[in-house]
């Protein structure tokens, strides 16, 4: 059974929590006691319908203020697959939360209130979906009941959105764009087609989700970062035979970032560029022949070479180049602005090294796509192009070529906070 990761985003009050609540309700993922609790809470708040948005607002402050503050994770199943929604709030620290929530998803659902049409946040949502290269974007034009289910209104929003997406120019992205009308309060066109939209012949939201590609990068160049070296030290008094068997065991534990590794493959270990051959692949103590993107395994090699945490195992023919100077698009995630020249810890996968931002080339205005070239820093929720220097080289791919091996985070050495995320250019 596979898992589809989804991000949802919307502005305040465009019915995002209600939409998710509805999806859970209509796929029968909400149990009676939770529904009863929501029924009671709805009454206490003085609303005369089942306020399904209460399913996702978890924190006291969120319920008090009727808003969502932090990324929440929501789970449901259909008979096709398991779904995980990263539900991101529409206002507070918006870009930060959206980038975080959307960083590993295959589908982005952008909500638009049919009465308001495209608003500033819509452009941000779409831009971030494009920046993260999310393969499928579903634009859900919601609250259609409040515009008399008007086809003309739907078409005009679709036309506006298409102009917007052409403006946010990313011609090299093979991104699928879908538009659907919906009314999440009434459950129209989420899991069931709605007679109200007689003019709409396309799929329901759930049909789109059930057929979306889960996007595990098995076809890309093989990349495997070593998390730790496994060298069993068993006591000979406890089990002498097993201790002898495992005396020379040396395995490299990690998760395949992309591509496939097979026993017998020639590999190269970076940064030392030593070559060897995969002699065994162990998955949770059992031998397997191959391991693909996403799998946690332990590789063993034919030769004893010096390998430690953070080393990257690749195929010699498609090895990434060492980079000491990195050009990247960055999104800043911290209240304290980026300080050029200050040392940050750069974490690329599990590999860390000291780094400095040596230049800020420009800060992007997401709405106009204009680049402001004269800003000295990058502030919370801002996106800009930077150059970094690192103490030890990293072996990253371009984010456009390999999202798993093409991103990194920056950590503030003083606060230990994750303060930025970078997409290698």
């Amino acid at each position: 059974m596979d898992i589809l990761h989804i991000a949802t985003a919307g502005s305040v009050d465009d019915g995002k929590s209600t939409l998710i609540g509805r999806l859970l309700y209509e796929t029968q993922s909400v149990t009676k006691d939770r529904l009863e609790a929501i029924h009671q809470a709805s009454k206490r708040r003085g609303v005369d319908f089942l306020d399904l948005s209460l399913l996702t607002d978890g924190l006291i402050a969120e319920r008090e203020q009727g808003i969502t503050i932090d990324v929440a994770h929501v789970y449901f199943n259909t008979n096709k697959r398991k779904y995980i929604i990263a539900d991101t709030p529409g206002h507070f620290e918006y870009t930060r939360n959206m980038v975080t929530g959307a960083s590993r998803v295959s589908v982005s659902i952008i909500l638009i209130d049919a009465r308001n049409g495209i608003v500033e946040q819509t452009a941000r949502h779409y831009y971030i979906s494009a920046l993260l290269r999310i393969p499928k974007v579903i634009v859900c034009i919601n609250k259609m009941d409040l515009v008399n289910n008007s086809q003309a209104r739907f078409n005009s929003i679709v036309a506006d959105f298409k102009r917007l997406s052409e403006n946010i120019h990313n011609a090299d992205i093979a991104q699928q764009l879908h538009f659907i009308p919906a009314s999440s309060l009434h459950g129209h066109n989420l899991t069931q087609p709605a007679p109200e939209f007689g003019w709409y012949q396309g799929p329901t939201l759930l049909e789109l989700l059930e057929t979306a590609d889960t996007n595990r990068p098995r076809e890309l160049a093989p990349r495997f970062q070593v998390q730790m070296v496994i060298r069993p030290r068993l006591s000979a008094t406890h089990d002498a035979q097993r201790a002898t068997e495992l005396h020379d065991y040396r395995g490299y534990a990690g998760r395949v970032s992309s591509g496939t590794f097979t026993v017998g493959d020639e590999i190269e270990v970076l940064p030392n560029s030593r070559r060897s051959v995969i002699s065994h692949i162990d998955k949770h103590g059992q031998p397997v022949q191959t391991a693909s993107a996403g799998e946690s395994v332990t590789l063993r090699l034919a030769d004893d070479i010096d390998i430690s945490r953070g080393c990257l195992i690749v195929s010699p023919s498609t090895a990434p180049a060492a980079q000491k100077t990195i050009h990247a698009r960055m999104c800043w995630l911290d209240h304290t602005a980026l300080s050029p020249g200050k040392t940050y810890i750069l974490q690329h996968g599990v590999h860390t090294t000291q780094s400095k931002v040596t230049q800020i080339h420009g800060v992007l205005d997401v709405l106009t796509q204009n680049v402001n070239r004269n800003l000295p820093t990058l502030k919370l929720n801002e996106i800009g192009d930077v150059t970094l220097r690192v103490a030890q080289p990293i072996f990253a791919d371009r984010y456009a070529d390999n999202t798993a091996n093409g991103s990194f985070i920056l950590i503030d050495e003083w606060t230990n906070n994750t303060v930025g995320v970078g997409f290698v250019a």
Partner: protein
Amino acid sequence: MSQSAFAQFGFPSELEDEAIYILRETAAQFERPAILFSGGKDSIVVTHLAVKAFAPSKLPFPLLHIDTGHNFPETLHYRDELVKRLGLDLIVRYVQDSIDQGRAREESGKYASRNVLQTTTLLDAIEELKFDACIGGARRDEEKARAKERLFSVRNEFGQWNAQRQRPELFHMLNGRIATGENVRVFPISNWTELDVWRYIQQENLPLPSIYFSHQRHVFNRDGLVWADSPYINKSPDEQPYAATIRFRTVGDMTCTAAVNSTASTLDHIIAEISAAEVSERGARIDDKRSEAAMEKRKKDGYF
């Protein structure tokens, strides 16, 4: 589409790969991790995953059990068997000791429980044993405050969770850097649902404490829930125990876990039962019924 149809689908292997990745990051990034072991199915699954993550090495960290003194005897029996069978290190700290030392005060009244008290014992144990990462079996689907948790959840020296100041977790990169005195709670099975846990137990053929399966027990009714009769619960005269065929769907200690009427005696039966259930898992947790935000409040105080 009814939920019972979902029961026929397999366990998503991505969840196991992710959990093992998180456990390996924990071993690599921290000096003194420990698994918080309660004897419940979720901590049993986490322990099993950890054994796999480092195979053929021995599990590189101990299990820590915070013993409320009100455990089901079956759970303790299971714990000791498991530790022996897998050759694990077990550390136990007792809520009773915290009470005796005046660090915690026993609750009184009808709903007296040691569920809240165990936070004190846990925080003392973390300080005493200098654990910098405590691995737990909490899941985001269990409860709405838990839905906002990170995989690596940083806690201050009082163990407190600050929901509005959490570190963003991007792609698969986990940042476990902490200052002296802080610690991290690690949740490797965050993205699993209750059904995923049971499918995995079935796939891996994991033994479980017998109380998860249907059995005869003396119970009484309170607040619409079925409570196990035990010397640790203050019953009123009209709460008369009777024999019933029940099982436990979630296992805390005897004062905070309610039973469900059930004849499910195998994993297949349990999975079918949960798939069709109309009540959520934590619907049987007395500790969650204290208020709408009971879990968030406890988490802010250092609970898991």
